[in-house]
């Protein structure tokens, strides 16, 4: 069981992620009414939000150092923030600004941050082998860092998943493979995509530990991840962790979600893991209601500042599009 400081910090992370993404959602919808035009507004393009999946990010990243590498997916904000990415530079990148992580070149699916060894990408499964490579470097360099790859349950049916897990197991590398099973890959439910119920069982194909976290609880994630990170740091090799989590929103903003029943959506909202976690912390006196409110207030201020930074930052010079192809 994590100590109270850790519990409070995980709560704080989940709150700031949630608020950050709510602000991004709002900004995303700006300029897109009455007719939704994906190209319009201050935040154009696709937008994949992670509301409901905060427990995975908070629980795993609580064990990481900034020097540990993390690779994520098209749905990266919760992980990026939990791993310590600068919120201002993240926001600015999402707004396409010169002050963003990639000076506006990457956008929300392509966040790369040297300060936190973070990378993500828009191609399902692409980042899994990258994490193996970070871990390979650590082993060669004699560092006790770990690399963590986050991906969805949909990604576990890509060839890259298989190749990467075999390599990491074979070379006994310090990697965590964290599968966020939110039951959906856009509109395709897990049962129509994966021949077995739990991806954790696929660890058997590589002879590594595979652990299922059956509910969307940051504490359970924290404990499982803690063991796996510690094992990896002391040279015990990789682990596969699967968390059954929830995607509270559409696949991307603007997704009509015809494939999900209103009941399902309502049920998910009711069991919002952030709210449930906060209630528990208050019930167990880890937090007072006032502490909780203070956390939300603090996060609100941080988020507002970041969004403000993003909005007021300048766009890159158009002709600078031609720079940075080569170093």
């Amino acid at each position, binding site marked *: 069981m994590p100590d109270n400081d850790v519990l409070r910090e995980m709560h704080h992370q989940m709150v700031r992620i949630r608020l950050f993404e709510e602000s991004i959602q709002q900004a995303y919808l700006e300029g897109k009414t009455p007719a939704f035009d*994906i*190209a319009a507004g201050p935040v154009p393009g696709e937008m994949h939000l992670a509301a409901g999946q905060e427990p995975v990010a908070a629980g795993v990243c609580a064990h990481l150092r900034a020097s540990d590498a993390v690779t994520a997916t098209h749905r990266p904000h919760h992980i990026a923030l939990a791993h310590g990415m600068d919120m201002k530079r993240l926001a600015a990148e999402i707004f396409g600004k010169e002050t963003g992580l990639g000076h506006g070149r990457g956008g929300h699916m392509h966040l790369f941050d040297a300060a936190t060894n973070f990378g993500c990408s828009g191609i399902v499964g692409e980042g899994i082998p990258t994490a193996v490579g970070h871990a390979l470097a650590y082993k060669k360099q004699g560092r006790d860092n770990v690399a963590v790859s986050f991906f969805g349950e949909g990604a576990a049916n890509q*060839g890259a998943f298989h190749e990467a897990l075999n390599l990491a197991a074979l070379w006994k590398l310090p990697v965590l493979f964290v599968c966020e099973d939110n039951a959906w*890959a856009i509109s395709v439910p897990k049962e129509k995509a994966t021949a077995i119920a739990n991806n954790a069982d696929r660890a058997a194909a590589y002879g590594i530990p595979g652990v299922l976290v059956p509910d969307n609880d940051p504490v359970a994630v924290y404990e499982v991840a803690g063991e796996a990170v510690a094992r990896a740091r002391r040279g015990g090799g990789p682990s596969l962790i699967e968390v059954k989590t929830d995607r509270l929103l559409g696949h991307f903003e603007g997704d009509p979600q015809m494939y999900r029943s209103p009941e399902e959506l309502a049920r998910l909202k009711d069991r919002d893991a952030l709210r449930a976690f906060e209630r528990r912390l208050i019930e167990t006196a880890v937090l007072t209601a006032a502490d909780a409110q203070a956390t939300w207030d603090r996060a609100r201020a941080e988020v507002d500042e970041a969004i403000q930074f993003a909005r007021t930052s300048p766009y890159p010079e158009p002709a600078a*599009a031609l720079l940075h192809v080569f170093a």
Partner: protein
Amino acid sequence: MAVETKRLLTTSKAISEAFAQEMERDPSVFLMGEDIGVYGGIFGATTGLLERFGPERVMDTPISETGFIGAAIGAALSGMRPVAELMFVDFFGVCMDQIYNHMAKIHYESGGNLKVPMVLTTAIGGGYSDGAQHSQTLYGMFAHLPGMKIVVPSTPYDAKGLMISAIRDDNPVLYMFHKGIMGLGWMTPNPRATGHVPEEPYTVPIGTADVKRAGRDLTIVTLSLMVHRALDAAEDLAKEGIEAEVLDLRSVIPLDREAIVASVRKTHRLLVVDEDYQSFGLSGEVITTAVQGAFDSLDAPPARLAYPDVPIPYSRPLEQFCLPNREKIVAAAKQLLA
């Protein structure tokens, strides 16, 4: 015929109508891909088809492009006519071996004994800030690799006719539709993405370019969404007395080299407009075709306006700086005539 009797469809509806009519006609036709069922395809190309044809003929797949595109090849070899969708062309890298080394070569390697009658559909194009991995066109790259036909429609009419031709073709056909020509409600409106589409099935021949606008002063060779941009530019140019001929390639493989040469012989000037990366691709091939076929007719070196050789940036001003557009086409045309 009175104008009001013409039925107008968006390109995505034209494509789904082609699917429906071919599936009615031929029980061996079926569709597979990610989110093509209940969702109806991310770009609406399969809307309504699951309800009509059921999950055996409109199959949602896992995110396993090597697996299901490879499966489409096997099914085609065993008597089916699959249509597989690669959601965005940008994803080709996870399944390219199946496409270029297997699908495209089996017929040849078998000395003509086996056929792989399948269609691979995929969405191309940017302009809406979807970043480096969701905005590419890439037909130039596929065209370098022998064994597949490649069609790239620009209008609802061509989209339906080319899809029917693709499905009926005994060869693998890569069918690339630009998101911006689909007439989607959630994209920046494009009046040219809606147009007359006959109700009955019809074909548009693969390998035949189409003069979308006749002109005498220069030839603009282009394709896909850039046809719309070129036609807009041609209107502007006409106001200044410059008559541009707009040649819509429609197919990349086979490339209608005769049409390119004929038009250049007529106008003596060539501008290639291409949303694909500039170098080592389509624009160089079209220019080479013109130079080799109409060297003596050329009054100026052929020009091209293409996507610069940089990954596609996310930020709007950066991406828009890179994309060919109406104004840039007008400027390039004038420079060519200067």
